[in-house]
């Protein structure tokens, strides 16, 4: 059984417009995917595509409007807060900017100790031993224990963020842009650390990033999101070497390659992401798609099988197969 199974996740927000009018913003429009134990699933897409909303629903910082989030055999999508608390131990989140997500008034030991106090009954000696163990796990020294976030480098702060998430021995770690605030050399170190922890602890990651080169490096499978829906999902190698959806292609083509000999002449995706308030009726990518035909404007595009474990939401690229 999959460790995490997300089915038909929907989330809307009310936004106020001028004149006191309320409008509905459709942030997630039926997101489904599964994550197997021990694998890393990447969620990619541009700002506003619903990556972070998905993450926040998964750890139930947000309550989805509809859909299911199965952790093992329990659906947490609509669980009330008290019932949720013990389950929170099993899934934890690491945030983008460690200087924002760490409390400036807590020392490293306090920050890591807090989840320990919430979820485990530990004596003071056991607690200290566990904090030391966690620090060593993420490559921090014992002397860092009594420091405050501002006394640490940003790379060290992100290690504290990871240690805090690991404190309650989660099965699943949601990483929301964990390396985006970091410089190249520090980024490399955090990625290496995450890979090492995955191997040694057998932990499962959902890795959210707009940085496709990092995703290619660390993820086993990738889901590409656009306007709150998954438009393509499949094994990382497949997605990067032979993408099926025109949006995935355009996204990959837009990433600059650090090689001046490969300076691009290929066409650039025009326009901007459409509004989440007035969702397109047919294919979500219609307005910007370089290969669209008239029918795309009115035909909604569900995911179709494009190969082993590979699905894409484009009826031009992925023809319907005969029912098996």
């Amino acid at each position, binding site marked *: 059984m999959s460790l995490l199974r997300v089915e038909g996740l929907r989330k809307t927000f009310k936004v106020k417009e001028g004149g006191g009018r309320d409008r509905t913003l459709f942030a997630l429009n039926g997101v489904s995917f599964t994550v197997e134990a021990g694998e890393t699933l990447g969620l990619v897409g*541009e700002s506003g595509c619903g990556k972070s909303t998905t993450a926040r629903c998964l750890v139930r910082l947000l309550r989805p409007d509809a859909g299911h989030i199965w952790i093992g055999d329990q659906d947490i999508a609509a669980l009330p807060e008290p019932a949720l608390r013990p389950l929170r131990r099993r899934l934890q989140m690491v945030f983008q900017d460690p200087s924002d997500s760490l409390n400036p008034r807590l020392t490293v030991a306090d920050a890591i100790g807090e989840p320990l106090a919430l979820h485990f009954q530990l004596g003071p000696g056991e607690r200290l031993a566990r904090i030391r163990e966690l620090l060593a796990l993420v490559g921090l020294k014992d002397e860092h224990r009594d420091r405050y976030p501002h006394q640490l480098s940003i790379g060290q702060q992100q290690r504290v963020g990871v240690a805090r998430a690991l404190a309650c021995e989660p099965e699943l770690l949601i990483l929301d842009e964990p390396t985006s605030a970091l*410089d190249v050399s520090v980024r490399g170190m955090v990625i290496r650390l995450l890979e090492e922890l995955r191997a040694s602890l057998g932990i499962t990651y959902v890795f959210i990033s707009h940085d496709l080169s990092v995703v290619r490096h660390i993820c086993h499978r990738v889901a590409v999101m656009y306007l709150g829906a998954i438009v393509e999902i499949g094994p990382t190698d497949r997605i990067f070497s032979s993408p099926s959806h025109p949006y995935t292609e355009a996204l990959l*083509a837009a990433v600059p390659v650090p090689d001046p000999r490969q300076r691009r002449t290929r066409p650039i995706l025009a326009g901007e992401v459409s509004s989440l308030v007035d969702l397109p009726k047919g294919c979500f990518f219609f307005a910007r798609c370089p290969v669209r035909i008239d029918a795309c404007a009115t035909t909604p595009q569900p995911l179709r099988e494009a190969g082993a474990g590979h699905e894409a939401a484009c009826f031009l690229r992925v023809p319907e197969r005969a029912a098996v």
Partner: protein
Amino acid sequence: MAKLLRIRDLHLRFPTFRGTVHALNGVDLTLGAGQILGLVGETGSGKSMTAYATVGLVPPPGRITSGVIEWNGRNLLRATDAELQRLRGQEISMIFQSPRTSLNPLFSIAQQFEIYQRAHGQAKGAAARAQAHGMLERVGIPDPRRVLRSYPHELSTGMCQRILIAMALSGRPRLLLADEPTTGIDVTLQAQILRLVRELVASQNTATLLITHDLGVVAEICDRVAVMYAGRIVEEGPVERIYGDPRHPYTQGLIASTLRVDEQKPIHIIPGVVPNLLVPPSACMFRERCPIAAATCAQLEPPIVEVSLGQHARCHFAADTGAFAAAERQRAQLAGVRPQDLTV
């Protein structure tokens, strides 16, 4: 090619209550008309400060302690505030990182364009409006008439950045300083904006200094690249040379650490951390993290070596191919070290 901008041995200090921060420690830079020079380096390496110093906008308490900034044969460090004010916007323009905070939320785009044009003695009245309209069209804004009536909050980030580019280039400046113009902007939009900058500076023959931490962006649009480390330029040259045969160990490490979307490779790490600029290391600033550091590196300031035509590196071993092989071996070894065991 005539050099429009020439920066020589620029030193910049910030006196703070914890001591003096040595932000720039001898920056040398030249830039000619029509050229795009990429200035790369990690946070705190002095990229932005170099640009701010050029236009006389170093934030207090920063102070330029020595050096020369020559613009068109004139030393800007001796220019009066009024002279600098005239240069900014007319001859030298700047684009900043966050388009949303660079526009005033209380004024419409038309009003802001007008304020800008008036400040720089450009067209007035109807001619000014026509010029603004034309510039917005050139940067690919659909329906400029509507956009001119809009306020920043009604426009997308990409739209705001296009407007700022339009403003910055409306006076046909001879030098454009672009500080991380696409950082935090989605890749598809980034591709559009980079192409726009490239086309506009080519058509106006603008000298451009593009500050970024993204080596991909540099490869995409720059002619030359300068790599900064701890307030100094450690390597500089044509992009093809620097990417193809980097000679400073820091440049090599930076290129090796950059992940690519078009290939999968083991991830490289530059061990250690950037030096504390309150107490900058003597001699070579990179030596504590350098895979090939020797005794000389702690004793002697590394010379600037011309390693190939137009390519300069500030390293004792820049011309020593044997040393590169050693650095390569060291990097390979590091790949096997547990990340927990590396210094942070």
